[in-house]
């Protein structure tokens, strides 16, 4: 019987790095089962085996994507019952956290979000109050539900690949009854850049860009990074609200955060505090961002950023 269950929602053609991280953590906790919603390509199924998933549970109904959250939580609760999982791991996206929330009530299980590491006994580590504290927390219930932040571990395949068995699970009949239905969905134009929440590197711009995100985008592309923005920049309409990092936007914890033209008011600092390395470029030497930057440049970002972009391109040859 598997004791760890990983939920992967619509894996697509190849598993995302964050999914591989969940599978890597799961293996350190016990025998792994995976619940997959949506299409599962042969490649993705093969990767699940390579990462040690002993069984794959799939929903009998295909319409879970037509509803918000509730039916996915109901399906996952049914899988947790069937597989006997004592730990359920989900990604820490807004939807992942909400599925975790409802699943927790269905299973009478404690839910811990924003987890960055899990000990073998299920103790979870996270940082709270915008990175000002690190805490350890544990569920007091027989089942634990954890949503784990991206970039928490390096993904590693299992020592020996397995061939998972596939099991179909019926979600409870009432799963869609009390759920909001998605009546239309429009795909956004893909930027080709990594997701802000998952990205290993983030280049973020603020008020100092004066409406021109060009230098930030070019540096981001040279580094294979995601583009972020301060609230001032999104409120000014220079870039979509999706890019907002900070208290009312996205909390990111990349390996590298480059802040350009952002003064670093407390809410902005909150969004970047847990980045491993912070670089700041700002004209104003008094900017609070320099108090937390590992490498700070007092200078004109319209000179510094393009020069850095050129230099990176030259070195990558």
């Amino acid at each position, binding site marked *: 019987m598997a004791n760890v269950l990983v939920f992967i929602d619509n894996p697509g053609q190849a598993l995302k790095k964050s999914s591989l991280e969940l599978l890597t953590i799961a293996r350190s906790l016990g025998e792994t089962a995976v619940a997959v919603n949506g299409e599962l390509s042969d490649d993705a199924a093969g990767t699940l085996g390579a990462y040690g998933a002993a069984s794959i549970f799939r929903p009998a109904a295909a319409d879970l994507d037509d509803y918000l959250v509730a039916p996915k939580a109901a399906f996952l609760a049914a899988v947790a019952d069937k597989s006997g999982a004592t730990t359920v791991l989900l990604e820490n996206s807004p939807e992942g956290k909400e599925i975790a929330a409802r699943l927790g009530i269905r299973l009478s299980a*404690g839910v811990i979000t924003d987890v960055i590491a899990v000990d073998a006994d299920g103790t979870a580590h996270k940082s709270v109050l915008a990175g000002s504290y*690190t805490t350890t927390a544990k569920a007091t219930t027989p089942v634990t539900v954890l949503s784990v932040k991206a970039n928490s571990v390096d993904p590693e395949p299992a020592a020996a690949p397995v061939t998972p068995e596939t099991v179909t699970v019926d979600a409870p009949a009432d799963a869609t009854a009390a759920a909001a239905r998605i009546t239309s969905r429009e795909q956004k134009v893909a930027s080709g850049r990594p997701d802000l929440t998952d990205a290993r590197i983030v280049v973020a711009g603020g008020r100092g860009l004066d409406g021109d995100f060009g230098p930030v985008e070019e540096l981001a592309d040279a580094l294979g990074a995601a583009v972020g923005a301060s609230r001032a920049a999104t409120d000014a309409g220079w870039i979509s609200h999706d890019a907002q990092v900070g208290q009312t936007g996205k909390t990111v914890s990349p390996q590298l955060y480059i802040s350009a033209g952002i003064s670093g008011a407390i809410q902005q600092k909150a969004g970047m505090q847990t980045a491993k390395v912070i670089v700041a470029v700002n004209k104003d030497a008094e900017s609070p961002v320099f108090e937390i930057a590992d490498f*700070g440049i007092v200078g004109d970002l319209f000179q510094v950023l393009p020069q850095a972009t050129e230099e990176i391109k030259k070195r990558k040859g």
Partner: protein
Amino acid sequence: MKIVVLVKHVPDAQFDRHLSGEGHTTDRDESILSELDEYALEAALQLAEARGGAKAGNKVIALSMGPAGAVNAIKKSLQIGATEGVHLTDGALAGSDAAATSLALAAAVRHLGADAPVDLVLTGMASTDGETSLVPAQLAERLGLPQVTFASSLDVDGGRVTARRDADTHSETVEASLPAVVSVTDQINEPRYPNFKGIIAAKRKSITTLSLADIGVDSSQVGHAGSWTRVTAAEERPPRTAGTIITDEGDAGIKLVDFLAAQKLL
């Protein structure tokens, strides 16, 4: 319409925030109405006003759970325009995690719906202290209601709520029947400020205090006893210290790349 807006008093993020006590709970001195709840309140007021406001029997009830100080979040909500306030307060609630909080709030919402049903529960997308976003979804699950979360626009018509949501890769329109639990983002509106008239009017509005006994919840179901998670340790993170700061002398871009290379980040 009868709308319940969940308002939380949270430590002001402009200052240092602290965890304290055996349960490592958030220190709530210097607390304010959570900024993200103002958008939910504004959305509720707009829905009520579009239907003739309080005169036409529309109610916007600001509900807050928490110790004595939480009443300040309710008072501010009344000044902004909520028609009445409800303060759920009981010593046994201290240290409640999201599961225990949602249990108590679900019981409070049921209690408030005893005379006339609640049509809508509105919340912010997250609190600015816990930041977990768990409570709206858990409240919906406990009440057996649809949840419409992260709404960036909201429309209620003929017993249905329609909302727009923006995700990273797509935007979507969602629809649910009332009653429903709806959480809204900071993109949905521009919250109003309390004006002089509102501040005077708020003095005449009532705040009902509810205890656990009033809503039929046993003290063992909430607080530390009723929580399904426990914070076992908390450590204040050492403040980040400033690293190397240089002033651009025409080659800062190259020095930046040198730094990235030295950190193996290229």
